[in-house]
């Protein structure tokens, strides 16, 4: 992107997931979607209508969902187990850990309506912990796509891979941050825009606000790099370290608890490389999340163009004084 580019709204990543899965499923009858009364929220109703034999409904039973998915995968099916991320990542964690990751079967877990997408439905429905718990599990790829392009590429990569995947999708329509001819690689971050004063390392629905912040900062003569760290595991440490070396300050942004997420992953990478750089994690603090819509929650915690630009200025001012 160019820093002056206007953001153009695309679809919800979930819709892209659904469309991509229909294409894949039509080409390969071994592709299966498994749902837990979640086909509506997972936008999989069209998949169910078009490919009824390739959708398995297990009822409201997320542990069963993952166990069944593992069984199907072990018998050669390419499974996309789809359920709200808040339940999938922790209710089924035991199954994810043993049946999928440690047993090494290529189940694709799709955490939908992730982060605070469910807004005012409250904390039971927020997933601010999914990345944290999955980071501690060996042998699972964790991807948080930032736009329709990344979502589509991630779904295709997951279907083609023989490794377990966790894909995290929000609900809202995502602005385009890539052109269709760009390259996408699991484990290799995308630089949305180059810059040298501030580096925003973000993922998922927080990349667009980081880009908006970069635009605001640009008007004030501050140059910001925006990185979409779509793959949290395996982490692109090279891109992180490059940013830490080349930029004056590093700010991580995530729709996740600041504990255990992308921010901490970046911090430990930088620290272990012996780099000292002013660093700030922006995300959901360790408190009961404020009530409101996703946008209100984002604003409340400074995950917005304005809020992130403010944080960046504060960080830069600190360096100068």
């Amino acid at each position, binding site marked *: 992107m160019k820093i002056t580019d206007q953001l153009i709204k695309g679809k919800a990543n979930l819709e892209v997931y659904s469309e991509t899965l229909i294409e894949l499923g039509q080409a390969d009858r071994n592709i299966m979607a498994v749902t837990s009364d979640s086909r509506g929220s997972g936008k999989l109703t069209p998949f169910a209508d078009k490919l009824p034999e390739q959708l398995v*409904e297990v009822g409201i039973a997320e542990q069963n969902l993952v166990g069944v998915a593992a069984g199907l995968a072990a018998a050669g099916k390419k499974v996309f187990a789809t359920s709200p991320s808040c339940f999938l990542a922790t209710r089924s964690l035991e199954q994810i850990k043993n049946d999928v990751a440690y047993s090494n079967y290529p189940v694709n877990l799709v955490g939908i309506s992730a982060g605070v997408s469910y807004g005012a439905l409250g904390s039971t429905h927020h997933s601010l912990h999914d990345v944290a718990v999955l980071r501690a599990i060996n042998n699972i790829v964790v991807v948080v796509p930032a736009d329709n392009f990344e979502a589509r590429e991630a779904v295709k990569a997951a279907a083609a891979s023989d490794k377990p995947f966790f894909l995290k999708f929000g609900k809202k329509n995502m602005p385009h941050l890539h052109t269709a001819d760009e390259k996408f690689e699991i484990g290799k971050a995308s630089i949305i825009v180059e810059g040298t004063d501030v580096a925003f390392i973000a993922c998922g629905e927080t990349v667009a606000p980081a880009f908006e912040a970069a635009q605001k900062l640009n008007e004030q003569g501050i140059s910001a790099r925006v990185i979409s760290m779509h793959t949290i595991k395996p982490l692109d440490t090279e891109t992180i370290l490059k940013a830490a070396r080349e930029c004056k300050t590093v700010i991580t942004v995530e729709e996740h608890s600041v504990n255990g997420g992308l921010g901490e992953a970046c911090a430990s990478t930088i620290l272990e490389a012996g780099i000292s750089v002013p660093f700030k994690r922006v995300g959901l603090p360790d408190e009961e999340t404020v*009530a*409101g819509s996703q946008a209100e929650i984002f604003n409340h915690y400074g995950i917005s163009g304005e809020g992130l630009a403010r944080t960046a200025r504060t960080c830069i001012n600190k360096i100068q004084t």
Partner: protein
Amino acid sequence: MGNIQTRIESSSWPSDNRRRENRPSWNLESGTWNLELGTWNLKMKKYTNLELKQKSIHLRKALLKYIKLANAGHTGGDLSCIDILNVLYNDVLNVSPETVNDPNRDRYIQSKGHAVEALYVVLADAGFFPMSELETLCKYQSKYVGHPTRKVKGIEFNTGALGHGLPISAGLALAAKKDGAPYRVFTMLGDGELAEGSNWEAAMMAAHYKLDNLVAILDHNTLQITGRNVEVCSPHPIAEKWLAFGWNVIEVNGHDFEQLREVLNAAPAVPRKPTFVLANTVKGKGISFMEDVKKWHHGVPSDEEYEKALTELDAQLAR
């Protein structure tokens, strides 16, 4: 226990999952029709059946109002369980705004937490907090979010992730047994929710510990998000499963105040057995165009639909 199956069949237990209106309740345990009153708690019996019925209509109006204001809510599942909640809080539960911290209060845990609007209006009506506070429902910085939280007076647990209410309730009931405390524990589950394995873990354990102070009510409206329970993942046969797990099972019409009062006040009904109340309900009950229609699971009425719903409810009041 083996012959209960035969008894169920010979008593023409309906094998489908349709609702059964105006049937007296069949006590599977004793194999008799439950026609007599249970153990009435006379002190608590403030309302006549007709008064409770009228109150339910007002509660329906209130919950629709706040769903409309919030532009969010689980309308269908609120309307299917509001009569049960009304009976619980106004006729059965030994709890009030004054006794919310009394260790001996009866406990109610709403396992189907998504029907929070119904719970909120019943609590507000019972004086736990001013009804007008619900104008902030789901708004920025409100404590009234779309699932129960302990920030709200009268709510015992943060629920909304399905399959948690029964294990919690079993724990509370077990504590009462250990302490020799007189309180009873009620929980309400959705029929789709029965697919969560944790329910069955708790069902087994509650019978093992002979928790006769525990009552699980099933809001059996036959629908969940995707559609009919029987099409998603059938929970049937329901009564037979709970019987086999060692529970006392009673079937009621979940919109019949007489039956609900009788059965819910009877707890503990059978010594040394937890009770499962299979309440046949209608999702969206009370609003003609919402009744038994899956899209109202979390549908918010348009202005026009809202007016129509209120007109229908007012007409029911006038009757």
